[in-house]
């Protein structure tokens, strides 16, 4: 039995659509028997149509942005020897808290609890239960603050961009942060000859975007009228689009986590086996 778990679309408010590659993967083949949708979908007519095209058995739990009050907040389904519960996640307090989720699963008597709301795809077992968050199918922007990992990633991108800008005027060229680019030294040689030129005229070998403002961490104020730009971090603002497929046989659930990273679909596989007493 193949089950699709998908949710947190936020179309059109936060996203235009699912990645085309997802849509292609999910084009109707009849293989998927049931769609479990974790909500935040009902404002988009086109998305509902899309979900219905995957399987006529579409089950939706209500997300905080869904207006349809007839949708349940949670639901359970039994497949073979496994009981699966679904819940959007906004009703889990604290938000995404594993212990709260465990409580929820216990109350629902679910072996597998699928929840959404965080826009972060994950799967883990806790106390013999399997917890799945299929993330956001569209990779919709999340208003929850970025986690540390995300912040670190962005900080390193900004640092790289800054290095690219500041490098030419650096008297001691840093090499560890730049790519081993053949053009690097050559550019430097050119720069030395024209070192009297104003900084803003300098060609930037790595980044063609307008220079970013200097981060103000060190207290220095950025002078000049350089325009702000968010171009470098644009790709990191939204979450990673993702969904999950559950293949349930007996008391075993094989979970396929689909993520869309840098234009490609990546699939991870996790197997959960219910402990039987």
């Amino acid at each position: 039995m193949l089950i699709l778990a998908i949710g947190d679309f936020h179309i059109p408010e936060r996203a235009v659509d699912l990645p085309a590659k997802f849509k292609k993967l999910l084009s109707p083949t009849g293989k998927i028997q049931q769609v479990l949708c974790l909500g935040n979908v009902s404002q988009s007519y086109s998305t509902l149509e899309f979900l219905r095209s995957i399987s006529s058995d579409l089950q939706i739990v209500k997300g905080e942005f869904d207006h349809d009050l007839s949708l349940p907040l949670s639901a359970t389904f039994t497949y073979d020897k496994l009981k699966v519960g679904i819940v959007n996640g906004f009703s889990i307090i604290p938000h995404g808290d594993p212990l709260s989720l465990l409580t929820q699963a216990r109350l629902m008597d679910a072996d597998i609890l699928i929840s959404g709301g965080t826009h972060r795809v994950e799967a883990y077992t806790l106390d013999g239960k399997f917890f799945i968050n299929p993330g956001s199918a569209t990779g919709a922007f999340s208003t929850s603050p970025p986690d540390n990992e995300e912040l670190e990633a962005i900080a390193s991108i900004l640092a790289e961009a800054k290095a690219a800008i500041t490098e030419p005027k650096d008297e001691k060229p840093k090499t560890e942060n730049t790519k081993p680019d053949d053009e690097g030294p050559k550019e430097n040689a050119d720069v030395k000859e024209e070192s009297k030129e104003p900084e803003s005229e300098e060609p930037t070998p790595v980044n063609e975007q307008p220079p970013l403002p200097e981060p103000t961490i060190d207290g220095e104020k950025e002078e000049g009228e350089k325009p702000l730009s968010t171009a470098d971090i644009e790709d990191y603002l939204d979450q990673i689009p993702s969904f999950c497929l559950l293949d349930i046989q007996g008391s075993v659930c094989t979970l396929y986590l689909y993520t869309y990273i840098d234009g490609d679909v990546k699939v991870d596989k996790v197997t959960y086996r219910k402990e039987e007493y």
Partner: protein
Amino acid sequence: MSEQLENSVSVIKQQIALMKKCLDQKNRLMDALKHCSTFLSELRTNALTPKQYYEMYILVFDGLSYLSSFLRDTHPNNHLADLYELVQYAGNIIPRLYLMITVGTVYMSIPNSPKKEIMKDMIEMCRGVQHPVRGLFLRYYLSQRTKDLLPVDDESLDDSIKFIITNFIEMNKLWVRLQHQGHSSERSKRTKERKELQILVGSNLVRLSQLEKIDKNYYKEFILPTILEQIVQCKDMIAQEYLLDVITQVFPDEFQVSTLEEFLSTTLALNDAVSLKKIVLALINRLIGFKQRESDLATTSNFLDVFIKYVENLDSLKPDLPLDDFFAILEGVCKICIIYHPEDYQNVNRIFQHALAKSKEHQGKPSDLILENYWKLLLLAPVLNYSSVKSILELDDTYFDFLTAQKPQLQSSVSMEVLDRLLDNNFKIETPGQVNKIFRYISTLLEEGNPTMKQLGLDPAQSIEVQKQQEKLAKFLHLLYSSDPFAHFELIRLSKTHLSKNSIRIQSTYPTLVSILLKIIRKLKLINYIDLENPTAVLQVKNVFRFISTTINELYQQSAENVPQSCVNLNLLAAQLANEVGLVDIAYEFFIESFIIYEESIVDSRLQYQVLLLIISKLHSCNNLITSSMENYDTLITKTALYGSKLLKKPDQCRAVYNASHLWWVIQQNEEEDDDETEEGEEPKPAPQIPLKKDNKRVLECLQKSLRIADSTLDTSASLELFVEILNRSLYYFIHGNELVTIKYINGLIELIQNNFNAMTSGNENETIRQEFNRTLQYIKEQGSIDERFQHIVLV
């Protein structure tokens, strides 16, 4: 198979066999020819349909091929010149001519034969067959047999070309004549038969196009004019439509380009019943294909001028041309102009000028869906065909004049296509000018709903069509973009002024605007622009928040059903972002806004409960608000707990209150030191925790309060279920170390639940709750192995 055909087929097969037998023996050529003549006589029949005749022809062709290769192999034993004369004694013309062609073509194939004379003779003698079907097949035979034999040296090429053209002309005449045979009641049958036969006629043009060495100029000066003359003269609709199409398909692209004027002017001389549309569009599609095959193809603009002049002259030269067809052609011309010279916007503007003028002819006439569809297609031509979406933004007023002259529904569908195109290309709209231009394209989507729907008493905002439109419009807003966040903000601000023109519709677009603005704030935060020490930056960011607030408030003024929920949600999101960037006062304000809406406008009790959960969840995540504005935070959470206790339904009250307990127990998970990433499938290790708010007492109070509410619930099952949930919630705090949630407290709860169970008569529902309870006890038991405190809990 008809009996007639069956008979003929069996005669032919038998005679072919006999012929072969004779050919395999010495000196029996004459007998072989007699058998040949016998099976050829079957082709004299009148009784078959063209399709059946073709079946027979195929067999005969094979038979004659055998003879043909025999003659070729035995040359010069058989003096072909004599044989050519000999076969002409056949008394019946059909067998005679088939034999003549068979022998004649073998004769042609040998070196130094008088090819030219043979060709001339064969084609001349074929005139004797005036019966359309038999004549067509005979001449098709001539064409097939001569296929690889026509000389193409400099001296003879001309003869070969003329040979094919003559055959083409004669075949066309026969084909056209077929239409006029028989009773007029069989007209449609004739038409069908003619279509079945058309390929025989067209094959001549194919053959012509396959001749090597044909010079473009010769084609332009002689070949095409001769063919076109015949096509015009035959006055036959089927022939004209078909043959012009064949010309368009078979001759090389370059030829088509160089003879555009000749071809187009011919179309003006055709039978009135001929669909000019089909012909011209086929040509246009061919040329478009050419351009697509050879993208670096250079043509002069003059080439498009021919097309534009053509449509401009259609009025006077073809006054009876249906408007449908006129607009279809115009669309084609528009398409080709765009594909060949996309930068030449003047061409397209001229076309729309003409379209507007022409469409006025239809004014005052009843609505014509087909015609309107052509108008739509014309309007879509630029939208769909510019390879760069940006070009769409270059059209001038003539386009918009024609667009706004259309019915709203038609305009909407054009608007939708524009949006689709932009979205499919992920085309970023980066300047205010572009924003304004696009809003001209989609202005109908912002207008009041479809009047007919209003008349029918339907809420136009609720129709599926409108929902889809508005969804797309909202998606489009994501295309407005600038890498400069404040420039981006300005684009959004500008789009809002456009969107605000129809207040009914804003409920589907404003939430998107708010989401985009929140994202801009996140970006400013991530590039470290938001520095609370920098008053300029703070002011700028506050401006954005102010604008968000205004937007939400404007939306809130709409009295549509779901607007309050949206507004609460949006305010909460804004609060969350304001907290994240450290603007805690603003966060507070947004919470207050959402509380006001909650109080004023959230009336459904189910929704009230859900909104409260969301509020709890959001407040719980507001770390900065807690740390730097505890007083405000306390105001908000107290209010929230109060809201919870005022919910209509007891279970909702109970759950809201025990969930609200978390507002006094906010522990920040500090991930930074958690280098060892939790592997999937493994139990997460406890992370270092920083308590932001840890008020054991208030937590307990909440639990106690919820317990009281549960206890006061009349429905004992519901009450029991809530007890179990509270027990679980208490375990949460027990695990997290709330000192007031003691073993004693938990034991008390368990006892309470147990007593309640004992007091009840068992029922099915109770069984479910019993199991919930048992699972909880089981959990406690298992936890004992990890946390020894659990061992002190008394399990009943």
